[in-house]
């Protein structure tokens, strides 16, 4: 019996799974549900396996095997092995409702580090650079025409810069929801703020429209690729037959 290549079987199975998922076009059915539950199980198992292989095992198990207990009692070992073990064990207390509060220690560390990373990254990676970029839009290099530059090109660049600044500022004003309370008791922004906020809404709609078009294109490519795959499977089966 000729050995069936594993990739062929893999292809057949993938084709069946693809059809089972695409059957959702008709409506929810048993095949679709089986395929999705199968997917969740395999994805979860794979994630757990790779997390163990790449993170947990090299940190908590491998040092014990390679270096032995001697390293555990060294200062370096305490910081790199004992404390991580303790933190991991405390984290496991989160599984028990009674002992859950003891898992607050590692969670507090996780939350604190995560918050600091987000704050630091936002400040250094987005807030400052993007603010500088917005301010630099109308830099002399951009605002003034370059030597020998056609007027149309310069105007286009200038208008684009102004538009970008207007878009940035109007969107930021739109996100500012502070308002004064008027005589009737309702909250109302000033007229200038209302105008800029509406302009910001328009630019946000443009941005989301572009994102929507990109999503459509991406999904069409994926759809095409799926049928390309099915076509290849059928071709190979028919060619093999």
């Amino acid at each position, binding site marked *: 019996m000729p050995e069936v290549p594993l990739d062929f079987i893999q292809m057949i199975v993938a084709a069946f799974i693809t059809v089972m998922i695409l059957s959702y076009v008709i409506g929810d059915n048993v095949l679709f549900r089986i395929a999705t539950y199968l997917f969740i199980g395999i994805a979860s198992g794979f994630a757990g396996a790779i997390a163990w292989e790449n993170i947990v095992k090299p940190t908590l198990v491998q040092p014990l095997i390679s270096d032995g207990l001697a390293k555990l009692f060294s200062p370096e070992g305490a910081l790199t092995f004992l404390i991580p073990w303790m933190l991991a064990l405390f984290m496991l207390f989160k599984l028990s409702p009674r002992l859950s*509060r003891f898992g607050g220690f590692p969670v507090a560390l996780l939350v604190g580090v995560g918050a600091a990373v987000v704050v630091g990254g936002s400040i250094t990676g987005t807030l400052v650079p993007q603010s500088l970029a917005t301010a630099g839009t109308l830099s002399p290099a951009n605002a003034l025409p370059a030597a020998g530059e056609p007027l149309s090109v310069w105007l286009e660049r200038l208008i684009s810069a102004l538009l970008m600044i207007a878009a940035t500022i109007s969107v930021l004003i739109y996100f500012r929801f502070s308002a004064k309370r008027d005589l009737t008791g309702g909250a109302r922004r000033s007229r200038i703020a209302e105008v800029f906020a509406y302009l910001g809404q328009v630019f946000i709609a443009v*941005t989301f429209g572009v994102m929507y078009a990109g999503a459509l294109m991406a*999904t069409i490519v994926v759809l095409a690729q799926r049928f390309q795959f099915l076509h290849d499977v059928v071709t190979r089966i028919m060619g093999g037959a």
Partner: protein
Amino acid sequence: MKIGTYLLWAAMAVGTGIIVLLGYFVQIDQIPADSLIGNIFELRLLIMGWAVLLAAVALGIGLFNLFLVHWMKVSAQRPGWKYSAVLIVAFVLTLLLGLIIGPDSRVVLFLFNSIQLPVEASLMALLAITLSLAGFRLVAQRRDLISLVFVGTALLVLIGSGPGILSAEGLFFSFFAGLRNWLVQVAAAGGARGILLGVALGSIVTGLRVLLAVDRPYGE
């Protein structure tokens, strides 16, 4: 929860957060390694390493909870328990294979390439139908300026991005391609910049609330 424990958790979060945050504003290259600040930076790396480990442990706890939920569903034979049984079998099989023979083995890669990848790709393919239907309904039912701008921009970008109504060549396509580029690179970019700044400001405020122990998501 006793007040003492609450303060301990808050101190842990604030302390570690401050240490990590300092690293964003100090050029580490200019600091001697054996100085106090240098040691603090070493501690910072250590703490971040612990956070990476704890993130992996948290992933494991989440997977265990997923298993437990479906196990209870199968035990109680609630509606849909058969699907949960399929999930449990697939989960246990993949996890055991991954733990024993490795996640990069042929068998595990077989399961990944034959089931997980096709399922996710097919689900993404179904999204094309859903997005198209959503766009049709939006433009058919809502006729306000924002909706028109949204759909109009999308249509222009689609037309100017590639083949479709127009071929990817010719004068018409060049016009729409240029229009598409302007929309994406100027109008959308400006709006996106404002969105990014707003998101950054919001993230900073949220993170500072945690670092100042105003918000305590780790428990009281």
